[in-house]
């Protein structure tokens, strides 16, 4: 589904990603862990198409397309979804109107008819139950005045609505209490299928107790220095990141 080869990316001439290699297949859950500043969020941003970064080397194939040559909205329409670490507040744009616009633009891209108001509302209702998000939140302006937990829940709700093929969760666990974390994780697990894939970017092992990964990768200094099974996350929890810093890159 996703194949990253020797990806290098810089911001303002400072190289952040220094040769990332990663393959993600349908049905898999990958966790990317690493200390602060290792490049985790940069990787997520580059995949979603944030223009602040310059790609200096490498390639990314997403479902047979050259991801890096696509506009941000095209990537989304092809089925890529980024759950933001810091979801943006947009005063004056209602969550409902925003989602309806997004969903129908994606449907149009795929040659589907736009959803009528009734079908859209029943879809909303169904997905709202999934992430236990309150209806009143969705009648308000997008993310405006939402608590940290409400914003993250709204990200997962959007994911449920848009049904991406590849979801990238960028530190979705940060700032969440345990109840909110369970709700978010439950939402992600319910959406999981053999046809889609998930990349969980996190600093802590805690989230991985609830979203169990098939593979864990450790990112350090712009490279994946270690990959393994879910046990690697436990090892990291136990030993901290320091022992990884001395380890040799695996790629």
């Amino acid at each position: 589904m996703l194949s990253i080869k020797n990806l290098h990316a810089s911001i303002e001439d400072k190289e952040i990603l220094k040769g990332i290699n990663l393959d993600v297949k349908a049905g898999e859950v990958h966790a990317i862990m690493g200390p602060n500043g290792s490049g985790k969020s940069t990787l997520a941003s580059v995949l979603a198409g944030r223009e602040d970064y310059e790609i200096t080397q490498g390639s990314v194939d997403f479902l047979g397309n050259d991801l890096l040559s696509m506009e941000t909205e095209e990537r989304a329409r092809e089925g890529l979804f980024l759950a933001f670490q810091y979801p943006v507040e947009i005063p004056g744009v209602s969550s409902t109107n925003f989602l309806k616009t997004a969903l129908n633009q994606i449907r149009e891209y795929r040659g589907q008819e736009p959803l009528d108001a009734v079908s859209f509302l029943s879809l909303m209702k169904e997905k709202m139950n999934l992430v236990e998000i309150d209806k009143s939140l969705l009648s308000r302006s997008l993310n405006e005045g939402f608590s940290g937990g409400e914003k993250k829940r709204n990200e997962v709700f959007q994911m449920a609505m848009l049904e991406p093929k590849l979801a990238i969760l960028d530190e979705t666990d940060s700032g969440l209490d345990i109840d909110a974390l369970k709700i978010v994780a439950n939402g992600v697990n319910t959406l999981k299928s053999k046809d889609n894939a998930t990349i969980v970017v996190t600093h802590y092992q805690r989230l991985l107790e609830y979203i169990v990964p098939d593979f864990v990768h450790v990112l350090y200094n712009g490279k994946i220095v270690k990959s393994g099974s879910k046990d690697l996350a436990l090892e990291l929890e136990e030993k901290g990141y320091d022992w990884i810093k001395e380890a040799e890159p695996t790629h």
Partner: protein
Amino acid sequence: MSLTSNSIDLKQGFIRQFELFEKALNGKSLTDFHQTRKKALKAFEGLGLPDRKTENYKYTPITRSLNKKFRFDYESLGKPTISKEVVDKLLIKDLDAYNIVLINGQYSKELSSVDIELSGLEIRDFKSAYEAQPDLVGTYFAKYANFNEDPFTALNTAFSLDGTFMKVADNVVVDKPVMVYAIADANAANWAVQPRNLVIVGKNSQASIIENYISLGNEPTFTNAVSEIVLDENAYFDYYKLEMQGENAYHVGNTQVYQVRSSTFNATTISLTGSLIRNNLNVVLDDEHCEANMNGLYLLDDHQHVDNQTVVDHKKPNSLSNELYKGILGGSSTGVFNGRIYVRPNAQKTNAFQSNKNILLTDEASINAKPQLEIWADDVKCSHGATTGQLDEEQLFYLRSRGIGQQEARSLLLYAFAMDALEKVKIDVLREYIDHHINTRLNK
């Protein structure tokens, strides 16, 4: 030709036209009304047209734009030059209102449809209102819009003849809005159009007016409008001004509001099209517990220029004024916002708030924002602020990351930005009409 000699030529041109105007009045030049006109012309002679040194018009080169030899249309006074079919197309569909059509400033009885069943409500042409009740109209006319201060108020007063007259007696809730289509017909010639409106709202009464400025044809037009609005105790009045004139239209509008005890005034001024627009909105709060809400929205493109000048004068204690002007400027357009708030020495416990926010879509667009507070009282709550920025890149990225296209995402954000300036628009049909025009512009 230097700007100064240009402005003198123009000024002399207007003064010479006044003589023709007097002749066209044909014997009606001995009335008190005409004495006021003469005083206003004298004031205009003294004030002259603004030039670059005139502080109040510093950023708005109106005099330069007026160098197109605008004429006053005496020959066809009161005779509509536009057919009903043409006018019908301009009307806002499904808006249930008292419809008034002004053609080149003259009230057209044929094209207006004012069928009043409500007692205590009078809506008619300014001209006949003055002729029928000179004492009443004379009590208000030119008593609020000060022709000794503003040259365009002076010019309008000197040439004032017709427009809309509206009087609401005490304790009347007017059942529908008054919709004024002020049409400048620029099919045949460069007309200078000077409508004069007077609105008097009695105690405990409620009413609303929509002024829609439109132009037809391709010749340049100059509209110089004055509206005087007088609100008695506990009156509630909504004022809407829509500016939708053509590419060759120049507009100066003076709206002068006078409020006494517990009255409320809500204004929404929306500038969409027109080459050059200058709006002067002046509100005098001359009593306690008055409230004035003034919102404005301007969407500019190409070489458009819009200048909003507001003055709120808090003369007495315990009143509130709240102002929000928002602008979206594209192309090489230029905007000006100058908001003045005066709080007089005994106007304690005044609340006065003002905000001006702008989004510049291009490097060529620019805005001059100048909020001014002059406070002589010591126990007040006042704030003002102006911001100018670009579209938020983070917000844009967020929307696009959900599959929304660049253009659609921009429109969504700009529409959201514009919306809070429209929160005082309470008439649903009007709101839809404005929404439609804003969306069309933003999706361009």
